[in-house]
């Protein structure tokens, strides 16, 4: 761990002329900026300041936007067992993503991520560990794997596959995700499986999915190419910085308007406003659908909708119904519309519905959302009021978790409908999508066995198993946790942690023996007695999942330590090169899974290296948005491998889906999905003149939408789905809204940013969760910036039961509360106050993932009835002053300047 006692360096080594240069992309946010790693042996002198003396080929001092090495951009690593210096800087020559070699503070400092026993990364996990007599002790891989496999087999045999619960990251490289899903779905075949950010395998953005929009259809160039960009639930400057600085900011500079729906103002919003092109719709958490619906209503009242687009690309009543009531009824679209809640009879049906909903009338929307009427009117004009010459505004719309983690279903539906009505979704500069969070490292190696889930919503639909409730109910006997903290990342955290304690540490069957068989027998007894075994694949020992609960810990190798593939938020695929030796015995997650799988008797895990995994999985990517199978085809025709071919594409990589033209021998990427402007000739160039040749595959989504007809389903966005919960939750008395989100400097990843970077820890000390509070709310409570405050919630709702929904309201909040399925708990967390007018009055805001002071304890563990995910952004808190924090009157760390202050 680092501390804030940090003194900056005043020199940095320059890479010498002939050092090794490897390409990679940043490990962190979805944008995945292109980077170069410069590596040279310690025995070789550093480069000099003259152009001919260094690897950059430029004279130092360098000028603005040229290469430079900051003191935080170098490190020392072992490469082939020998110490080397490395410098990692953004690639100034990349033609995509981070133009001119731009970089965020997170990626800019990524050289500090690598293992170095002299640096704060010294505590990387290096050996498999088994907890004997309460202490995690280093053992061999064979010893740890044999125990895990024997106990796992026993649990599955005696308690069923669903007793084997897998909680995993969903993004940490395709090779790993393929191995994890192949093992979990094809072989273990468990329904108790989910990603790091949701209790069940949820659809994050149902509105997009059911309308027919791919989350990541747009290209980054689209975000800067509109006349008006509407952003709901994020400031991309804070969260995927380079999309903002490389793409959106140039758009703003040439006059693009940016409308932001957010309860607080941060740097990107400030900049747009400063340039006269920004509008902040400062809403209360959870009310995005209200504001979006009100904008839509004004547009329809004025007849500003894109009539030509609607006529050509929106499903009419017959087309809408063709996706309903037929076939297997197995698609989400069919299931979700069982109760008539979402589908419309085309444009006229939607319009009639919207006009009949009182909440979207301007005066009502103002009252619910807290946004000024004038701002909502302004937004409607910016989105759709025809220009003076009668031409249409080109609008694009993007959303992120502030939208879909506060009232996911109505909010995503409302955005999809608004976007469709203004003609967005399928043309350059007129797109609809997500900005994204983590990079896209998913790759399915099997099919989730939804029908094995005992959970069901009203109608005929089974719903993916809620792994949190399943665990709390005592059904999980073996928890396999991969690269996530589980507890702190979920909502209503206290209840979940208590269950871990009961099932793991308080169970009498604890390992007391050195003998492998005795250990196995003990753990089997624990499972059979109703307890739970925890195995944890990680790069650091995390608290409490690793340090307090794991029986077995497997050390994982990660970014820079193994060759991996991954895509970014515009589907751009790159090879992330290995450039140094993983610490100790750490191994990639695919290898760990393979060893475990083989010991459990499963076949198909004989991979020798990462490329073997990639070449096996490529064919399963063919229907996905990031299809890369054709890279392998090209590679094999050229006598090379998938990984080497992708490596040759450097930081530019290629945008999936990838096509191969067998005649020209060229690979072609896909700029955007749903591109209705693509012609037959465009596609012929990609895959040959007779349609998709060889292994190339056609998919509707290249030129149409992902719906039953290829046109867009225009959907309702009923506020009633969330309104009972929202109205119950709404602050009463001296409560305030409490919401959370990402902070540019630290949001990804906590274990690197705040815990192992001296400078970042100086700015955001790990023990200093902060809370932004409006000056009026602060004054009423006698709070000043720098004060230590107690935030507490005396009514945290916790949905605790695994129940079947039969009647339409069974899973609704008020009904479940009445029927005793929701427990009200208490939670408290301390924070340092930051008094700022940048946050809306009545709303407080904290960093979303501080594992020391996790404010998720304040958020209700209530899932969206359609997505199955928590409304992470909805919480309330009372706040009282405890005294002064040490940061109030010292100058060496933190700052209490509002994030939106600017010249």
């Amino acid at each position: 761990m680092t501390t804030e006692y940090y003194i900056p360096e005043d020199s940095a080594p320059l890479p010498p002329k002939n050092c090794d240069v490897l390409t990679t992309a940043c490990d962190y946010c979805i944008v995945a900026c292109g980077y170069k790693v410069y590596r040279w042996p310690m025995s070789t002198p550093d480069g000099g300041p003259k152009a001919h003396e260094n690897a950059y080929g430029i004279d130092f001092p360098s000028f603005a936007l040229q290469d430079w090495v900051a003191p935080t951009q170098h490190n020392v690593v072992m490469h082939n067992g020998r110490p080397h210096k490395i410098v990692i800087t953004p690639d100034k020559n990349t033609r995509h993503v981070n133009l001119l070699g731009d970089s965020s503070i997170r990626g800019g400092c990524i050289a500090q991520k690598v293992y170095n026993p002299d640096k704060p990364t010294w505590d990387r996990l290096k050996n498999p560990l088994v907890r004997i007599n309460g202490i995690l002790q280093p053992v061999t891989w064979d010893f740890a794997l044999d125990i895990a496999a024997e106990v796992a087999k026993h649990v599955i045999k005696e308690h069923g596959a669903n007793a084997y619960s897998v909680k995993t990251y969903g993004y940490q490289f395709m090779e790993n995700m393929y191995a994890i899903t192949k093992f979990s779905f094809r072989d273990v075949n468990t329904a108790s499986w989910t990603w790091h950010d949701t209790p069940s395998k949820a659809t994050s953005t149902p509105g997009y999915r059911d309308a027919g929009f791919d989350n990541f259809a747009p290209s980054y160039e689209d975000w800067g190419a509109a006349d008006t960009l509407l952003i709901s639930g994020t400031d991309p400057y804070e969260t995927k910085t380079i999309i903002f600085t490389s793409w959106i900011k140039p758009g703003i500079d040439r006059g693009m308007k940016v409308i932001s729906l957010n309860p607080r103002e941060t740097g990107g919003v400030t900049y747009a406003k400063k340039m006269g092109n920004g509008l902040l719709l400062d809403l209360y958490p959870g009310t995005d659908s209200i504001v979006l619906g009100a904008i839509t209503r004004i547009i329809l009242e004025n007849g500003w909708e894109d009539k030509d687009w609607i006529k050509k690309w929106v499903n009419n009543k017959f087309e809408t119904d063709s996706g309903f009531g037929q076939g297997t009824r197995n698609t989400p679209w069919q299931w979700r519309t069982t109760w008539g809640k979402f589908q419309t009879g085309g444009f006229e049906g939607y319009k009639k519905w919207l006009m009949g909903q009182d909440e979207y009338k301007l005066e009502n929307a103002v009252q619910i959302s807290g946004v000024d009427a004038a701002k909502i009117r302004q937004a409607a004009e910016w989105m759709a009021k025809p220009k003076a010459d009668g031409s249409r505004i080109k609008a694009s719309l993007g959303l992120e978790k502030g939208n879909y983690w506060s009232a996911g279903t109505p909010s995503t539906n409302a955005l999809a409908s608004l976007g469709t009505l203004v003609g967005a979704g399928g043309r350059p500069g007129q797109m609809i999508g997500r900005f994204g969070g983590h990079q896209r490292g998913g790759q399915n190696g099997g099919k989730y066995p939804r029908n094995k889930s005992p959970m069901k919503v009203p109608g005929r639909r089974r719903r993916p198993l809620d792994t949190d409730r399943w665990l709390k109910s005592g059904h999980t006997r073996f928890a396999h946790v991969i690269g996530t903290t589980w507890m702190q990342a979920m909502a209503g955290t206290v209840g979940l942690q208590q269950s871990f304690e009961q099932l793991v540490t308080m169970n009498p069957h604890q390992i007391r023996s050195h003998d492998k068989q005795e250990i196995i027998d003990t753990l089997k007894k624990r499972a059979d007695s109703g307890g739970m075994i925890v195995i944890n694949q990680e790069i650091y020992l995390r608290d409490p999942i690793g340090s307090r609960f794991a029986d077995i810990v497997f050390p994982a190798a990660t970014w820079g330590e193994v060759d991996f593939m991954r895509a970014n938020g515009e589907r751009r695929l790159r090879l992330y090169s290995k450039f140094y030796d993983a610490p100790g015995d750490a191994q990639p997650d695919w290898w760990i899974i393979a060893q475990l799988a083989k010991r459990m008797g499963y076949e198909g895990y004989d991979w020798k290296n990462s490329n073997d995994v990639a070449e096996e999985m490529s064919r399963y990517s063919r229907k996905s948005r990031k299809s890369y199978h054709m890279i392998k085809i090209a590679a094999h025709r050229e006598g090379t491998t998938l990984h080497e071919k992708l490596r040759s594409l450097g930081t530019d990589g290629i945008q999936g889906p990838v096509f191969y033209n067998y005649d020209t021998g060229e690979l072609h990427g896909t700029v955007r999905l749903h591109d209705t402007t693509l012609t037959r000739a465009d596609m012929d160039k990609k895959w040959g003149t007779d349609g998709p040749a060889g292994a190339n595959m056609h998919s509707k989504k290249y030129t149409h939408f992902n719906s039953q007809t290829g046109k867009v389903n225009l959907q309702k966005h009923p506020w009633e789905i969330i309104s009972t919960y929202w109205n119950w939750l709404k602050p009463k008395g001296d409560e305030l809204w409490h919401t959370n989100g990402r902070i540019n400097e630290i949001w990804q990843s906590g274990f690197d940013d705040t815990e192992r970077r001296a400078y970042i820890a100086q700015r955001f000390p790990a023990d200093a969760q902060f809370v932004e509070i409006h000056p009026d709310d602060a004054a009423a409570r006698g709070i000043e910036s720098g004060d230590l405050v107690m935030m507490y919630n005396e009514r945290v709702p916790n949905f605790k039961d695994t129940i079947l929904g039969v009647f339409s309201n069974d899973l609704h909040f008020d009904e479940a509360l009445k029927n005793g399925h929701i427990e009200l708990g208490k939670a408290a967390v301390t924070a340092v106050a930051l008094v700022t007018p940048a946050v809306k009055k009545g709303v407080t805001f904290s960093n979303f993932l501080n594992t020391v002071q996790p404010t998720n304890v304040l958020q209700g563990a209530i899932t969206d009835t359609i997505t199955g995910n928590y409304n992470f952004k909805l919480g309330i808190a009372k706040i009282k002053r405890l005294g002064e924090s040490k940061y109030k009157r010292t100058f060496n760390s933190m700052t209490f300047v509002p994030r939106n202050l600017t010249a």
Partner: protein
Amino acid sequence: MSTDTGIDNTTSRKRKARSGTAHGKCMITRRQFLLYSGGTAMVASTVSLGLFPGSATATTARVVGYPRKLIARLSELKDNVPVDFNYPDDLDNSSAMIVKMGGVQAGGGIGSRRDVVAYNYLCTHQGGPLQGSYVAEGPHRILGQCPLHLSTYDLTRHGIVVSGQAYESLPQVLLELDGDNVYAVGMMGLIFGRHKNLLES
């Protein structure tokens, strides 16, 4: 201490002679004062050197060799009006500013109200120019947003990044007050574009 009266805007070559070990020892005290003094008014000579074991040698390196350069007269600084100068030399990327922040106390601040600070002008992210971006609002004193990628820096807290992209705090120019004369005597943090602050030429 110097008794110079003229403000020398060129590299103070003759001052380099002062930058030996003896001078360095003096600077350690100053450095400790800058970094770790709290809100209470202290004078440099009373600060304990033993506060953070091991840091003394590290800090020595960051002041030894720096020129001592007269950059302003305290009585001539107007509240919240930055004055430009170059430091530690007149070579590329040395542009810097000194400002009296209207009574707002700052880490490393000098003067009776500890409100006079100096910083290099180049954003530590990609070298964007921060000239003209000084803001004084309520108790807050910043430079930014940088025109290139919008970083902002808190001038009361050693130039720490408030919001944005910067890899480091804004390099702070270490100041020394002698009567009414303000001298630049060292730097904390690497200037953008340089691989070391003190260039050979």
